[in-house]
């Protein structure tokens, strides 16, 4: 049951992002794309992470993992495996950038927490 929630939640989020978002951007330009982020991610975040149908009893799995997969697999189902191999360089660079960004954020988070604790100690 817990994994069923993850599958349904990421599938729905992926379907919305990879169809409706582009339509908003096409119809209203860059403002439409921004607005699509607000309504789609807002609602899907509420479902997946606030209500919480994605099972998260370990290292945090964001709905984004499923959303990225949905966009890529949509094109693989439509155009075949060659579409995937031609996109592989982008995917690799994007994953490396994401890993670096997440890691840097944690390091800064830990630094800030340490600094705050030190300041509190100094005040007390």
């Amino acid at each position, binding site marked *: 049951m817990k994994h069923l929630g993850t599958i349904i939640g990421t599938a729905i989020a992926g379907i919305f992002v990879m169809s409706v978002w582009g339509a908003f951007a096409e119809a209203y330009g860059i403002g439409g794309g921004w607005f699509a982020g607000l309504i789609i991610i807002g609602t899907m975040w509420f479902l997946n992470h606030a209500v919480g149908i994605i099972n998260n009893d370990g290292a945090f799995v964001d709905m984004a993992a499923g959303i990225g997969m949905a966009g890529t697999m949509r094109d693989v*189902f439509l155009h075949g495996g060659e579409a995937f191999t031609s996109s592989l360089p982008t995917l690799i660079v994007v*994953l490396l950038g994401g890993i670096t960004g997440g890691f840097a954020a944690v390091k800064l988070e830990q630094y800030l927490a340490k600094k705050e604790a030190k300041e509190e100690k100094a005040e007390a």
Partner: protein
Amino acid sequence: MTFQNMVATFSGAFIFPFLIRMLWGKMCESWGNIGGWVAAGFIVGTAWTLNHGVGMMFQTGGAWIDMAWAAGIGLFVASVASGDSLSKGLSNYFFALVGGTLGGFILSCFM
């Protein structure tokens, strides 16, 4: 993919999970669930305008690589680095990818 494309794509992928990890939790802490909606607009919406709206992320091929890939892996790595369980997380990550594949298949049925 030129060197310039790689630098831009890498940087765009760095920025997105970085902003989410640094800001999203604080917004929810300050404003409750409404903070999640604020974050959706001001983090995801704004990062979208950068990465896909003006095109910081270069696409080499026929399958769309969304900035969501960066957020998914970046937030996962961040969580592992801060001490959460990798093995439990990996099985959940796997099922998220299964859900994404299902979503992608359903999309291919009508697009």
